[in-house]
């Protein structure tokens, strides 16, 4: 029994399709349990490093606080005025109502300005996954639904990449295979006895320090060894 446990594989290798599927499943789970939209669920998960249990814990402990911190408003903070034409708060031009968009807060800006705002943020890096309403005093989250409507195809593609990468990189249980050019990720059962992982790309590495597999030597010794090897003085000694 005890031996069987040792031989059981304590990790799973994931390709892009697997990663995507898992991410979707997690989003579905949160969205169903909390009865919120999938976009909101995605924002929540991203905020809590894709830990479904953490999202559940925090949400049921204090929903109001979570909503505030993450920027998921239940109702708009401002009502979009009933006028036929509105002034955009960024370019100060006047547009008809149907050309204005707002996040859950109700702060309306024209489509061109939204596109510029989103594009600047996406080209700034993965921080775009936590995009907020442009109004300085407003913390309302801007989710993928708005990105899909307002961003260019290029930017949408980048956003989706960042979202996928975030699922692996921000999650405590997953890591990318460190081999150069390898696109597989590893889902590891945290707390298992052996750190050895063998990726589908044939690279074997240590989960803990992501250096080449080094059992039975411990990670600290390996780090020292690598440092020693890289130090120029050792070559001189030779």
């Amino acid at each position, binding site marked *: 029994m005890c031996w069987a446990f040792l031989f059981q594989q304590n990790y799973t290798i994931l390709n892009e399709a697997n990663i995507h599927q898992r991410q979707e499943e997690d989003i579905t789970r949160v969205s169903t349990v909390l009865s919120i939209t999938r976009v909101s669920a995605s924002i929540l998960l991203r905020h809590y490093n894709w830990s479904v249990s953490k999202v559940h814990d925090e949400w049921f402990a204090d929903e109001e606080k979570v909503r505030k911190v993450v920027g998921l408003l239940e109702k708009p903070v401002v009502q979009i005025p009933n006028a036929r034409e509105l002034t955009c*708060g*960024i*370019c*100060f*031009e006047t547009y008809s109502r149907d050309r204005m968009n707002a996040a859950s807060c109700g*702060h309306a*800006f024209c489509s061109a*300005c939204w596109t*510029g*705002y989103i*594009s*600047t943020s996406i080209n700034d890096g993965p921080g775009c996954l936590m995009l907020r309403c*442009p*109004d*300085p005093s407003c913390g309302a989250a801007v989710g993928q639904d708005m990105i899909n409507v307002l961003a260019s195809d290029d930017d949408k593609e980048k956003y989706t990449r960042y979202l996928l990468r975030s699922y692996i990189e921000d999650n405590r249980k997953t890591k990318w295979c460190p081999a150069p050019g390898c696109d597989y990720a590893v889902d590891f059962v945290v707390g298992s006895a052996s750190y050895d992982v063998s990726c589908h790309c044939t690279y074997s590495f240590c989960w803990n320090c992501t250096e080449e597999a080094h059992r039975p030597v411990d990670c600290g010794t390996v780090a020292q060894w690598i440092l020693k090897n890289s130090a120029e003085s050792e070559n001189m000694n030779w």
Partner: protein
Amino acid sequence: MVDFARVQKELSECNRDVTISGIRIVPQSDNLLHLSGTIPGPIGTPYEGGTFKIDIILPDGYPFEPPKMQFITKVWHPNISSQNGAICLDILKDQWSPALTLKTALLSLQALLSAPEPDDPQDAVVAQQVLLSPVLTPMHPLDFHLSFFQYSLVSICVWAPQYLRDYPTFAGTARYWTETFAKTNSIGNEEKVQKLLEMGFPEDLVRTTLKEVGDDETMALEKLCPG
């Protein structure tokens, strides 16, 4: 890329109520990418009575990227470099929002003058310099002009320690700088100062001498050249 229509609107909107806000923005060049703003020193602070000039450069991505602002007028302030006028303010960096404007940014600078933020995280190298440098002994503003150059070697945000430790000295120095650099007549004097500087006189001496002789260039020159 820059939204010129918006910049034009901003300028006319800002200059419309210049009598109320005291904040003025004028273009430096004809393409609206390089502007300069002026703010009055807030009343009840060591900056009262001064007029502070700020250089504004609009990046390509404006208004989605923050404008680059820098004080042209020398200011003694924990969050502003005494050397080159660089500003430590969050809304000019990561807290910028396209819904803010040049005017609101200048208003924030004015607010920063009234309420310095000495606890703001600052340049580590400079901070170290502060700790190591003998320059930092608190100084009476009257002695200040003697070591102007010594002082100006240490840059930015450095003055936070002084602000925290010795507020009277800080306020005295800030007032002295406002008197010397930010009073309207001293701005008009800039050309004369430049001329005398080119002749090789030290800046602090040029400014004090000009002041003593009532801004008369010839008299100042006579005074500067003994014999």
